């Protein structure tokens, strides 16, 4: 096989893995949109907040230390302990669940029956609020996420595939972290689908998404389902925050990954879990392949910044509900 073709395959593989990361972010959007018709602008900030919290807990940082020091004139910054990763993840999950409850209790319970645009505006407010809280709680320094996830290219894959091409081919270069992300995402997606399709709560979630009155009449508590869904979105945000944070450090630009999820959602549809995955993969592969075949040689490169949006735009013209979406036209 020619080296060019093999490099093309490598580009596709790397595109798929990048797509998985996009899909992870998009998943959180889909969950909330599906169950409550809310387009949650704060999803990216939730990923940032979750990652910040995880790092903060692991490093034994005192939350709100700047505030405490300013008020009481103390000098506390660290508890002086380090929390093992698994325990810290468990704590972070608890905090995301508490956050879900608070959002439901203090924001959306008061907005039941409002126009989607108002709910959307509320999530924008929520995004800025959460960004501020994250800053206040854990400080605004760039942090590294020391979860012990493998980094760098996989030598094993390189050696394994070395023999495929000629002398000028050195095997596939695949980031170990991307491989981990793929596995984690696969587990997450399978469990989310199993949850949505087979469990009582998943059925209730679909019911709530469809008709509030009918859901109430069969014994479903709307509040419970909404808290549940926001908690799940929080957990998905944590996973996305961990993966992106491990890749590029935990910093405030992390909240901008939400923007990368938008074209994924337009492609896959706002209401479909498999759609988020397929959409993510198409965008990931599409932008890498476009860069490799057309962007870099003819357009001066850096096409990855806009390719996804262009693809989404084309989709909007020909299939506005996305690949797997349903009746979003009436809803939005």
């Amino acid at each position, binding site marked *: 096989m020619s080296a060019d073709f093999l490099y093309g395959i490598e580009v596709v593989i790397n595109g798929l893995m990048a797509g998985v990361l996009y899909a992870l972010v998009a998943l959180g959007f889909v969950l909330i949109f599906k169950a409550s018709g809310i387009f949650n602008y704060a999803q990216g900030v939730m990923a940032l907040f979750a990652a910040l919290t995880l790092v903060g807990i692991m490093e034994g940082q005192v939350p709100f230390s700047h505030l405490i020091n300013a008020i009481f004139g103390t000098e506390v910054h660290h508890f002086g302990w380090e929390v093992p990763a698994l325990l810290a993840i468990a704590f972070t999950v608890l905090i995301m669940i508490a956050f879900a409850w608070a959002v439901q209790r203090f924001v959306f319970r008061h907005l039941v029956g409002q126009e989607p645009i108002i709910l959307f505006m509320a999530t924008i407010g929520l995004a800025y609020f959460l960004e501020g809280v994250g800053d206040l709680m854990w400080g605004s320094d760039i942090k590294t996420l020391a979860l012990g996830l493998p980094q760098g290219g996989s030598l094993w894959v390189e050696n394994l595939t070395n023999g495929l091409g000629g002398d000028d081919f050195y095997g596939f270069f695949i980031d170990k972290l991307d491989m981990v992300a793929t596995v984690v995402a696969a587990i997450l997606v399978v469990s989310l689908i199993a949850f949505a399709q*087979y469990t009582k709560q998943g*059925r209730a979630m679909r019911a709530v998404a469809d*008709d509030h009155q009918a*859901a109430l009449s069969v*014994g479903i508590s709307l509040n419970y389902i909404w808290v549940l869904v926001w908690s799940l979105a929080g957990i998905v945000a944590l996973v996305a925050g961990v993966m992106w944070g491990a890749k590029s450090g935990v910093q405030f630009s992390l909240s901008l990954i939400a923007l990368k999820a938008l074209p994924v959602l337009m492609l896959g549809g706002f209401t479909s879990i498999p759609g988020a995955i397929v959409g993510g993969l198409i965008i990931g592969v599409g932008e890498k392949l476009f860069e490799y075949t057309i962007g870099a040689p003819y357009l001066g490169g850096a096409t990855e910044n806009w390719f996804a949006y262009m693809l989404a735009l084309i989709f909007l013209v020909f299939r506005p509900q996305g690949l797997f979406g349903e009746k979003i036209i009436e809803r939005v």
Partner: protein
Amino acid sequence: MKDIIEPYVTPDGRTIGGVLMDMRNITLRFGGVEAIKDISLDIREGEIRAIIGPNGAGKSSMLNVISGFYNPQEGEVWFRGEERPPMKPYQVARLGIARTFQNIALFEGMTVLDNIMTGRLTHMKSGMFWQAIWAGRAETEEVHNREIVERIIDFLEIQAIRKTPVGRLPYGLKKRVELARALAAEPKLLLLDEPMAGMNVEEKEDMSRFILDVNDEFGTTIALIEHDMGVVMDLSDRVVVMDYGRKIGDGTPDEVRNNEQVIDAYLGVAHD
């Protein structure tokens, strides 16, 4: 306390038991408007109880009070011998009170089967994890639930549309699916809000037959609201008549038919 009411057997052989649902001096206001004014009515176990009245009489409000969608400002609601505190609709549903809606509230995006399965939600007790991996108690539970749902599907003769998304069904069939979903909950009390509204004669006859059969075969207590006087009189054991939020008549169809107040207010028939 009310007197204890003796069970009796109807001419067609059904047993009517004690009081299942007792509404005592219910008053419901929306701002300054009194939708229900000091109404008391009871529903006995195993009977078909109708609430009739002209438009705006407060029938639907009454049904909404029973099903917890509205909480009355005054009065007591007694269910199965206990006073029911103010509740949310989903809590009432979990007590075993199922309902249908005048304007049909179905999950339009789901299939008929999935819609009816949601009626079983309150009966699912196994853990989330076991349900997700379809094992252990969850599996037997699911199989059991499916059997019940299939029986109801057979019963209401909707086998042919089991897998059809509800959004595509015609009006009459939607009404039937909604009844099926309410039945799937195996309710102790079934509330039907105008089950025959907007139907032609044939569909009305079908629906009447289903209501009678449900009551007969499952022994379900049914309370229904209906406009069509003729249908109501044939169906029900006892009828409450409402007008302008007040109760103006209560009794067997024959008693109600001969009640002058009812004739005045509802039937509009001249008498001298």
